[in-house]
Each structure stands twice: as C-alpha cells, then as structure tokens.
C-alpha cells in the first residue's frame, strides 16, 4: 500500500530558511510528484495557524501522509505529530525534514546548491512517508514497586520518600547494618551533628514505614533481569546467625573470645566476632562475622535460640517496575608512601581522622600518643591532570575545614596547618574557611608541580612545603599527625553490569542529561542518586535522593508508561531461525523460540528493544525490519534522493 495523498509543507522559519533556500522552488519541484496531494510554503509552520493548516488540509484533501520541511525534529517533531493527530491521522504517518540546520544554515553562501539539497531531502521524506505504516506507542504497565540498592543516607532517604507516596520499596543493603559512610562521619556539616545521630533519626522514620519498605541487610543481588515495568530481582540474604531477640546480647558480645580490627573504626579499635558497629545501629540485632567466629558457642550459652550458628543463606525473588541505584562511593586509599602514608605512623586519611575524633575524648590520642599539631594535606588523589583521578571531589575542602574546626572545639591547644592547592569551600561553606583562619589555623598553599614532602624526625613528622603564600619559600612544619584529605572514588558493583548502566569518564554512573534529566540513566527504569553518580556531600546526596524518589513516582504512580514504537519486528515467514541476530542485540531483547512444527523463529521483546537496528543489519534474509525505518522505505528514500533535480 502506498500513501499517495501526502501534504508537503515548506517552512520559511521567518527567513532562517527562506533567506537561503528558495522555498517556492522547492514547492514547485515536489508539487507534481504522484504521491503529493498538496504542497505549500508558509512563514512559520510551528505557529498555531501553521499547525491549523496541516489539520485543515488533512480533512479537506483527505491526506494520508504529512511531510514538514523545517527545523530539527529535536525541536518540533512532537509539535507536528500533535497537529497530524488532531487532523485525524496516525501521528507516525508523518516525517519532519530538517532543511534549516542541514541546508540553510550550513550552506548559506551557496543558495542554489542549498535549494537543490532541500529538494532532494524533501523528496526522500515524501518517499519515506509514502511507505509509512500506522504505528502506536508501546504501553508498559507499571506497578508501584521499586528496588532501592544501597541503604546509606541516599538509599534510606529515597526509600522513605517512595514509601510515603505509597510505593512498595525493596531496600537491599550489602552490609549487615544500614547507614553507610554517613554513620561513620564525625560532625557532618553544616549542622555539625554526628553522622550516626542523623542516621538514627532516619531509622526512626524507617521503622514507621515497615509495612511499605522491605529491608534486606547482609544481602547481595544475585541477578537482575527484565526491563522497565518488570525487572526480576534475585537477592541472596546472607546469614546473620542472630535469628531472634535476646536481652543479653551485650553479655554475649563481652564473652566472645575473638577480637579483630573493627572496620567501622578503620581498625582504630577491636571488635568481637559477634558485634554491633556502633550504639543505635540498625537492624537492632547484632551480627556474627563467620569469617572470624570459631563457633566456641559462648554466645549461644547466653542467648540460646536467638543465635543459630548453622543458619544458611536465603534467596528471595521479587519483581519491581523501576530500580534506584544508591550504591555510594569509596574513599580514596592513598598509595603506600604517598605523603608518608603507611610509611610513617601518624599519617592517616580524613575518614580515619573523623573516627579518631569520635573515639578520642578529652585528649586527641593516636596509638597512645597525644596529638597537638596536625597538618591537613588537601587534594590527595584528586585533580591529577594525567593521573588516576582527574576530577575534584569537591566535598573534601569543606569536610576538612569542618573537621579541623570540630577538632579545635573538642580538644585544647591544638595547632592546625592546612596545606592546600585551592580552597573550594563553595556555597554557604566559605564561612568555615573564614572561621578557620580567624581561629588561627594556618594555611599554606602548594602547587601540584611541587607537592609537600612528609619526613620523619625523632618522634615528629616534618612536612616541607614550598609555600606560595610566602612567595615560594620552603617552610617546615613539625607535627604529630598528617591527615590526608582524600576524595571519593566510584565503586564497581555487580548490579552495574547486570543492568548495563553507563559510566561517565570519571567512572561514576552517568545520568542521561546533567541539567534536564539528572537522575535517570540511559537504561529505562534505572535511576541513580547520591555518590554513585558523582562526589557529593550529605546535603546534595539527600537532595538527589528525594529527587530520584519523586522522579520514580512519575513512572510508577500513573500505572503505565509509554515507549516509542520504533523497534524491530520479525517477519516470521522469512525468518529461518539462524540465530545470527541473537548475539548482535546489545540489550538481549531477541530470543529464539520454537513454533508449531518444531521450527525456530526469532522473537523480539518489545520492551527491551531499543530500536538500534543491529539485528536488521545482520539478518541474511532481511527478515527483521525496524518499524518506521523499513527496508522498502529506505530504498525508496535513496532513489528519491539521487534522482535528478
């Protein structure tokens, strides 16, 4: 079937096009084509009267196709599709030809050639529409069920917001306790409240939403398949070995004979094999670290049935319509010898320093020695032009200033030096920088070509800085402790591979558009928030978490979502079941299925298919067409394009 009553509209774009392209000549060149019923030029096709023109012509000329030659479809494809639909025609029997960017603007010094190119482009558009078929969007049902991966501050915030909108949430956390990195922080800015206090407040909220939020801790996502509307999730919940409540957990912990470095405190303290990371940790049940437990049974003697040392992992399966990734970051771990790290005692990173402050009361002590003089070195592992991390983690300046002020407040007579490249205490946090200066903390500036050097002299560490603020003179600072202000590194989680989410150049997960679509990824139904996306402070993290929750609701609460119809379509008669297309598909949308008679045929999962056309390209039988871009359409377009003008 050929659409042979096509309306063609050439737009002047107020001179943008018509100053170069002779629009009257274009109309002349196409108006007598056999498929064309009416051809016109008009000043502004996108204007209300321009759209009305299309609507009226469809009725008056009984059109069965529309071609508009104007600007880029990025700008007005949806506008014109709307006009076509209002005129009573299927919106996909329409093609927008871009003669502004593709002709008038790029060839403005060659008006004749530009006009010829415009004619060729319009003819090929007419050719395409003449063979176009009616299409409709693909409707996907969306149940209000969401998987949130990671129960740090971002994951918890997003889960709470979703639950409050009556969305069912599966919150999956790898660690035995929730709260993530924020729980470890000391006096997070801007309020200065302890990280664990902030997390506790969220935990109280979480408890109230128990009916909506299913929390899995100590849990790993084993597989993740499907697509927007229906992702199938398989979670392995690892054994906690503490299976019930007991009033004597603290006695059991005390009796446990095993002592290992406590990872929550970065090894500054020891913990038992059965433990809580900190007071108020959630879930309220302790956990047994089976790698270190010797199964002596002391805890069982006290807690009896609450402890089951033989507990096994459980597998849980469920379906969700969208996924929120809130998997967080890793603090950069300096290399051995980098500013004396792991080479000299007393060289630690900022996160460790924060734990040290949380643990040191009265006096600041490290390995039994009182710390009086501290040098903070900034940008460690960050902003390396040709190095591992080119980016600035941007939270570290403020975090370091904040930590130094907190230290000054908590301990007497501290002497603090900041050895920095640039202070980026942006936004409201400039006042920390100011306050640090006013409180006598001393700032020394280094350039990356001449970084500071840390040496050991007796029981002191000596930091040598070529200080730009002292006109490049070398200054020596004798200190007790060097704190390395480290940035954030992206994590690499198995779920990223399972979902094929794209990464940015820096290795963090990438949004579709940083300004316009900041929390969605290119994979439909997979959204991101917090520090898995970019380095962020707590304030920015929770803001993005609430944003992701609101965005997720726009998908889930309506009950359905619509996808474009331009996907692959198998002609079962031509398909020989060779299977060449299956490995070609980047989204695993093609499956070979047996049909009646034992033959195998390719089947396309409409929701998974992204319409890339790779399968059509490989198919030896031309059995796979891309809707909207069929073989016959493309051939006719080429013929129309090369025909003499």
């Amino acid at each position, binding site marked *: 079937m050929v659409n042979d009553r096509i309306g063609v509209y050439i737009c002047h774009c107020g001179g943008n096009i018509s100053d170069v392209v002779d629009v009257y000549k274009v109309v002349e060149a196409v108006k007598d084509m056999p498929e064309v019923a009416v051809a016109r030029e008009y000043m502004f096709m996108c204007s209300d009267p321009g759209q009305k023109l299309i609507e009226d012509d469809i009725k008056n000329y009984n059109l069965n196709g529309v071609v508009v030659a104007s600007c880029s479809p990025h700008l007005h494809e949806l506008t014109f599709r709307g006009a076509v639909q209002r005129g009573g025609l299927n919106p996909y029997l329409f093609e927008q030809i871009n003669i502004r960017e593709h002709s008038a603007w790029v060839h403005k010094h060659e008006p004749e050639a530009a006009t010829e190119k415009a004619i060729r482009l319009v003819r090929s558009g007419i050719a395409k529409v003449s063979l176009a078929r009616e299409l409709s969007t693909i409707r996907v049902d969306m149940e209000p069920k969401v998987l949130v991966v990671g129960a740090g501050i971002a994951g918890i915030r997003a889960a709470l917001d979703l639950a409050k909108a009556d969305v069912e949430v599966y919150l999956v956390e790898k660690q035995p306790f929730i709260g993530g990195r924020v729980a470890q922080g000391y006096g997070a800015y801007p309020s200065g409240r302890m990280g664990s206090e902030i997390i506790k407040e969220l935990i109280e909220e979480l408890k109230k939403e128990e009916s909506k939020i299913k929390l899995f801790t100590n849990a790993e996502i084993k597989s993740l398949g499907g697509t927007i509307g229906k992702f199938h999730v398989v979670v392995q919940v690892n054994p906690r070995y503490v299976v019930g409540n007991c009033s004597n957990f603290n006695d059991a912990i005390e009796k446990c004979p095993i002592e290992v470095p406590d990872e929550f405190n970065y090894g500054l303290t020891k913990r038992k094999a059965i433990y809580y990371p900190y007071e108020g940790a959630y879930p309220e049940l302790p956990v047994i670290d089976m790698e270190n437990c010797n199964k002596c049974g002391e805890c069982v003697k006290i807690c009896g049935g609450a402890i089951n040392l033989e507990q096994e992992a459980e597998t849980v399966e469920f379906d969700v319509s969208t996924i929120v990734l809130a998997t967080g970051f890793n603090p950069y771990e300096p290399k051995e010898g980098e500013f004396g790290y792991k080479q000299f005692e007393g060289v630690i990173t900022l996160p460790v320093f924060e734990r040290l402050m949380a643990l040191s009361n009265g006096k600041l002590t490290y390995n039994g020695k009182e710390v009086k*003089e501290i040098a903070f070195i900034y940008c460690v592992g960050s902003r390396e032009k040709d190095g591992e991390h080119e980016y600035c983690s941007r939270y570290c300046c403020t975090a370091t200033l904040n930590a130094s002020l907190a230290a000054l407040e908590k301990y007497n007579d501290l*002497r603090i*030096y900041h050895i920095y490249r640039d202070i980026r205490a942006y936004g409201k946090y400039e006042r920390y920088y*100011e306050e640090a*200066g*006013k*409180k*006598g903390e*001393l*700032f020394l500036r280094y350039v990356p070509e001449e970084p500071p050097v840390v040496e050991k002299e007796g029981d002191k560490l000596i930091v040598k800085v070529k*200080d730009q*603020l*002292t*006109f490049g*003179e*070398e*200054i*020596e*600072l*004798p200190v007790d402790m060097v704190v390395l202000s480290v940035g954030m590194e992206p994590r690499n989680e198995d779920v990223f591979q399972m979902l094929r989410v794209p990464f940015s150049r820096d290795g963090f997960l990438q949004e579709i558009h940083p300004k316009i679509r900041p929390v969605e990824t290119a994979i439909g139904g997979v959204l991101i928030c917090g520090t898995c996306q970019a380095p962020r402070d707590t304030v920015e993290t929770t803001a993005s978490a609430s944003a992701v929750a609101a965005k997720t609701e726009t998908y889930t609460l309506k009950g359905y979502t619509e996808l474009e119809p331009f996907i692959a379509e198998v002609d079962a008669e031509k398909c020989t079941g060779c299977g060449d297309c299956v490995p070609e598909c980047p989204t695993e949308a093609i499956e070979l299925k047996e049909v009646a008679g034992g033959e195998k045929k390719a089947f396309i999962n409409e929701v998974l298919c992204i319409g890339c056309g790779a399968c059509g390209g490989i198919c030896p039988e031309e059995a796979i067409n891309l809707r909207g871009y069929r073989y016959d359409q493309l051939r006719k377009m080429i013929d129309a394009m090369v025909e003499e003008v």
Partner: protein
Amino acid sequence: MRVNPTLATEFKELGAAKVTECFNCGNCTAICPVTPQNNGTFPRRLIRYIQLGLEEKVLNAPEVWLCLTCAQCTVTCPREAYPSEIMVAIRKDIIESGMCPVHMRDFLNNLQKQRNPWGIGKFKRDQWRKKADSPPPTVKENPEFEWLWFVDCAHSFDNRNIEVSKKIARLLNDIELNYAILGREEGCCGNDARKAGEEGLFLLLKEENEQIFAKYGVERIVTASPHCYNTFKNEYDGYDVKLLLEIIYDAIKSGALTLKHPVNKKVTYHDSCYLGRYNDIYELPREILKLIPGVELVEMPRNRREALCCGGGAGFVVSEYPGEIRPNNLRAKEAADTGAEVLAVACPFCMIMLEDGVKVQKVDDKIVVRDIIELVYESVYGPEEG
C-alpha cells in the same frame, strides 16, 4: 625555615591582635601607597612571616619602616586584620630588641628629652603665646576653665603652624569659650611615638599627661591636631575630647561667628589620615568650607577613604623617610592638578609636609597650603586681617 607558632601569640600581645586572621590576599600590598614598585610584597610578606613564626625575617625587614600608618590597608583589608597595626607591632618588637634604626633615633630622642619632635627646648613651648594679639589664657590665669585647649607640638613649635595657633586663640576668645592652655607644662600626646613603635615612650608621655591633667582638673580637651585627637579619644581613658573644628562649626551655626567676608577661591581639601580613616571624620571639614562664602570646593580624585597620606605619620614629619615614593610630592601635584588655588588642610603635620611638597613640585605659584582655620578666620575678620 621551621615554623614557630608561638610568635603570632607574642605579636598579638604587641598589638597585632588580628594577625592570624590575614588570609594573605594581598589587598594591603595593592593599596599601600609606599610599597616599592619593583618589590610588591610589603606589607603582606611581613604579616605572613609573623603567622609562620619566622622572627628572624620579621626583625630584619627594613621595609617595616616604610609604613606611615596611613591605614589605607586597614580600612581596605577584607579580613579586618589591621595590617597597619601589625606594622606598628613589628616596630615595637624591633625597638624592644634594641634595634631602632638610625633614622628614627632623633625623632624618638627629641620626644623623650624635649617632648616634641624637633628637639626644641621644652621650656619654649609657650613662647608663641607672646606673639599673639589675642593670647589664650593659661590654666593658672583661668583655673575655672571648662575646656583645655591642648595646643600640640606643631602648633607650639613650628613657625608656619604658630600662625594658625594665633588665629585659633582669637577665634576662641571671640566666641567666649571658657578654656585655657597648659603653657610650658604641656607635653606630647605620644600618638606618633606609639606608631613609630616606641610603646614605652608612649606610656611614659601618657602618664605625664594624665598627671598634669589631674593637677589642673582637666575633664574636657579640645585640640586642633588630628594626631592628638586620635590618641586622646581612643587611647586615653576618661576625657571628653573634641576636635577644634567641631567647636568652630558649632560657633558658626549658633551665630557666635559670622562668615561675612567672601573668600573667592577654588579650594581642594586634603583628608588627614587620623581624622578620616582613624576617626571617620570626612564631612565636617568640607561642611565648614562650604559655609564660607565664595569658596568653590573641588575634590582630588583620591579623597575621603581613598585619600593619599601626606607622608608625615609615625614620626616622618621629622625623620628621614627611607622610601623612594614621597607621598607629599605626589599629593601636592594631585592638588595642583585640580586647578585649585588653595590646598586646605586640617592637620598641622599635613601643613608641614604639603607646603614642602608644593615647593618641591614647583607648583607654589599656583597653589598655597592653608589651614581651614585660616580660611574661616579670613571670612570672619576680612582679607586684610586674614
């Protein structure tokens, strides 16, 4: 060089109270009118040395003697670290260490021995009084005085300024202010001794002044010198201090003085550092000039908060200035460039420095330096007497 964090604490006690607040932006260096062109690190470098505790470098920096305490840096400093006060603190440290530079010695010796910068015998302090047609009463002559007119060193010993003193006396007598002067018992206020870094001498002078004030029951002080005004008002305790111009202004406003003779002159006014930047008095002198009939007031491009110093602060009214840039010469040229015929001043040190500048710049045929008091006097009593 190894840091010594205790040095900054010591300097805070020396008066550099805000030294640790400096964040080394360099505004002070950019604004400083005497920073050498090819070594633009003063005063920032010295402040940095104190922060780091490099005392050796601080004590051996000759640039510190460039500072005129004009306070342009201090009013511009975004951190309110008071750079000019830090320079004063460094000088205190140097002088306390017994390393007073040669060029400052005469000034300080003169103050110590004769209680005036020039070293003229202190018993001559009241000699100007004999030349006055309408001499001021002394505390002995008028023991019931309400105001003590603290005449100040320049108005007592410097011939050009004595001309002004005589006029002040007639004006005060005619408005019938109940006042008196201390005569030869008057000392030096100590303002510039302190700014030069001789804190001990300042304290000694202050103690002497307080004793003499107590002896005569002084409660209220009026002075024509911004330097005296500054120190009495801000560094002494318990006195009601007024600037002479305030009294003159009130007398004009109340009708006690009538400005009846026009002074048909184009006049530009040079702000004194110690009136303007130290005490925020910018408009009073201008208001008085505007009240004088015939005066056309024009401004130099750098005026009020941005006004250039005359170069006479911190002892340099007599001491040999070690810098290459001479602010009094620059200022005289700026004044002449406005086309004004009179460069009006409100400070006896500005008078001395700028008269010198006008001569060096050879613009004395175009412009003369006059105290505002002299212009008021001319308007009150007529051009012949003026």
